[in-house]
C-alpha cells in the first residue's frame, strides 16, 4: 500500500484518539461549571455524561476515504492539498458542532452562587521557564535574521526569503493569539477541581498550552534553519508550492534541485505529527481530569 496513505491513516488514527480524549475532557469541564448542581440532577448527568463520539468517528472515516482516494487517483501535490484541506475542514466542522453542543449544555447549568478565583495575575512567566521562553523567541529571531542576511548577500532566492517571512509571520500571529487565548481562558472548575482532584487542571492546561506553543516556535525555527542550510549548500529541501508561486511572481531567479520529494516529506511529517498527537492525552493537563469519574461521584453523592 502507498506509504503516504499509511502515514496519513496513522495520523488520522492518532487524531481520532486525541479527539475522544479532548471531547471527554471538554465535557467534564462543561459539567464542572456547577458540579454540585449536576450531581444533584442525575437525569441531566446521565444525559450529558459523555460527549457523543459519532461525529468524530464519521469525520475520521470520511477523511481516511478521501485521503486514500486522493493518493490513488491524483498527482502527489494535489493529493497532499486534498488531504490537508479535508483534515482542516473536518476539524473545523467538529469544533463548530461540538462548541455549539457544549455551549448549549453550559447554558442549561445554573451558575453556582459561591464562586472563587485567584488574585494572582496570569502571565506567561508562570507557565514556562524564562530560559525556554527566551530560547524560543531568540531562535525565531536568529533564523529570521539569518534568512534576511542570506537573501541580502544573494545566497538564497527572494521567493525563499518571502516564503519564510510569510511562514514566520503566520506562526507569530498564531502564537500571539494562542498566548492571549491561554491566559484569558476561564477557570470554570476552580473550586470544583480541588474537590475532585489534588491538582489544578486549568493551570496544568495553561502550562501545557504555553509550552506547546514555545515548542512550536523552536520546531519552526529548526525547520527554517535546516531549509536555509540546505539552500546555502545549493539544494532545496523539498518542493514548496508557495515558493514556486512566489518564484513565478519574482521571476528570473535561479532554481535549486529538490532534495526530498514532497510526498515523502509529507509522510515523515505525518508520522511525527501522529506521535506528538498520540502523546497529548497523556500529558498532566489531560490526565488529571480524565481520571475524574463522574459516575462514581454521582453514586457517592446519592449514598
Amino acid at each position, binding site marked *: 500500500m502507498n506509504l503516504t496513505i499509511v502515514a496519513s491513516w496513522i495520523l488520522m488514527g492518532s487524531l481520532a484518539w486525541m479527539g475522544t480524549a479532548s471531547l471527554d475532557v471538554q465535557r467534564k469541564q462543561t459539567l464542572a461549571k456547577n458540579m454540585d448542581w449536576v450531581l444533584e440532577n442525575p437525569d441531566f448527568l446521565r444525559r450529558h455524561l459523555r460527549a457523543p463520539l459519532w461525529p468524530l468517528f464519521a469525520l475520521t472515516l470520511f477523511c481516511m476515504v478521501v485521503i486514500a482516494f486522493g493518493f490513488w487517483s491524483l498527482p502527489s501535490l494535489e493529493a497532499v492539498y486534498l488531504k490537508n484541506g479535508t483534515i482542516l475542514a473536518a476539524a473545523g466542522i467538529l469544533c463548530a458542532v461540538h462548541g455549539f453542543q457544549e455551549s448549549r449544555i453550559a447554558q442549561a447549568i445554573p451558575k453556582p452562587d459561591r464562586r*472563587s478565583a485567584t488574585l494572582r495575575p496570569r502571565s506567561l512567566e508562570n507557565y514556562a521557564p524564562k530560559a525556554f521562553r527566551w530560547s524560543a523567541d531568540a531562535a525565531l529571531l536568529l533564523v529570521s535574521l539569518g534568512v534576511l542576511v542570506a537573501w541580502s548577500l544573494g545566497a538564497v532566492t527572494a521567493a525563499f526569503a518571502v516564503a519564510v517571512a510569510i511562514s514566520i509571520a503566520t506562526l507569530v500571529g498564531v502564537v500571539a493569539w494562542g498566548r492571549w487565548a491561554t491566559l484569558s481562558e476561564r477557570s470554570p472548575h476552580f473550586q470544583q477541581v480541588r474537590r475532585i482532584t489534588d491538582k489544578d487542571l486549568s493551570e496544568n492546561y495553561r502550562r501545557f498550552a504555553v509550552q506547546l506553543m514555545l515548542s512550536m516556535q523552536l520546531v519552526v525555527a529548526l525547520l527554517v534553519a535546516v531549509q536555509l542550510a540546505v539552500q546555502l549548500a545549493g539544494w532545496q529541501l523539498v518542493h514548496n508550492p508557495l515558493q514556486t508561486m512566489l518564484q513565478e511572481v519574482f521571476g528570473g531567479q535561479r532554481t535549486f534541485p529538490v532534495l526530498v520529494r514532497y510526498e515523502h516529506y509529507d509522510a515523515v511529517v505525518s508520522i511525527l505529527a501522529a506521535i506528538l498527537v498520540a502523546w497529548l492525552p497523556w500529558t498532566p493537563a489531560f490526565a488529571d481530569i480524565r481520571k475524574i469519574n463522574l459516575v462514581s461521584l454521582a453514586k457517592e453523592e446519592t449514598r
Partner: protein
Amino acid sequence: MDVSIDESSAIPVYRQLVQQVVKAVGDGRLRPGDPLPTIRQLAVDLDLTPATVSKVYQILEAAGIVATAGRRGTFVHGEASANVGRFLSREMEIRFREFVDEQLQAGIAFADLKRFVTKELSDSNRRNA
C-alpha cells in the same frame, strides 16, 4: 491568594470583593507592589461582568489601595497599608450613616436608637475585653 463571592449574600458582589482585597492588604497577604489580575481575568474567572470588577478596582484606586500603571497592569499601592485604615473608617462612617437614616425613616425614635447603639458598643467592648 483567592477571593470568593456569594451571590446569595445580602452584600453586593462588588463590596464583597472590595472587602476581601482590603482585608488581604490589612493582614499582609497582599503587599505593596503585588500585581493584581486584569479586570478581564477576574471577571471571566468569577463569571461577573467586567463592569462589576472595574467598579471594584475604581473604588480601591480612589481609596489609594491599588494603583493602575497603564499597560503594566494593576498593583497594590505603595501606601496601601496606611490607606486601609482611612478607607475602613470612611466605609464605616458611610454604612453607619446609612443604618441610622434607615432606622429613623423606619420610625425608630432617636433616643431608642442611641440607647441601642450605646448598649451594643458597651456589650461588644465587654465581650472583646
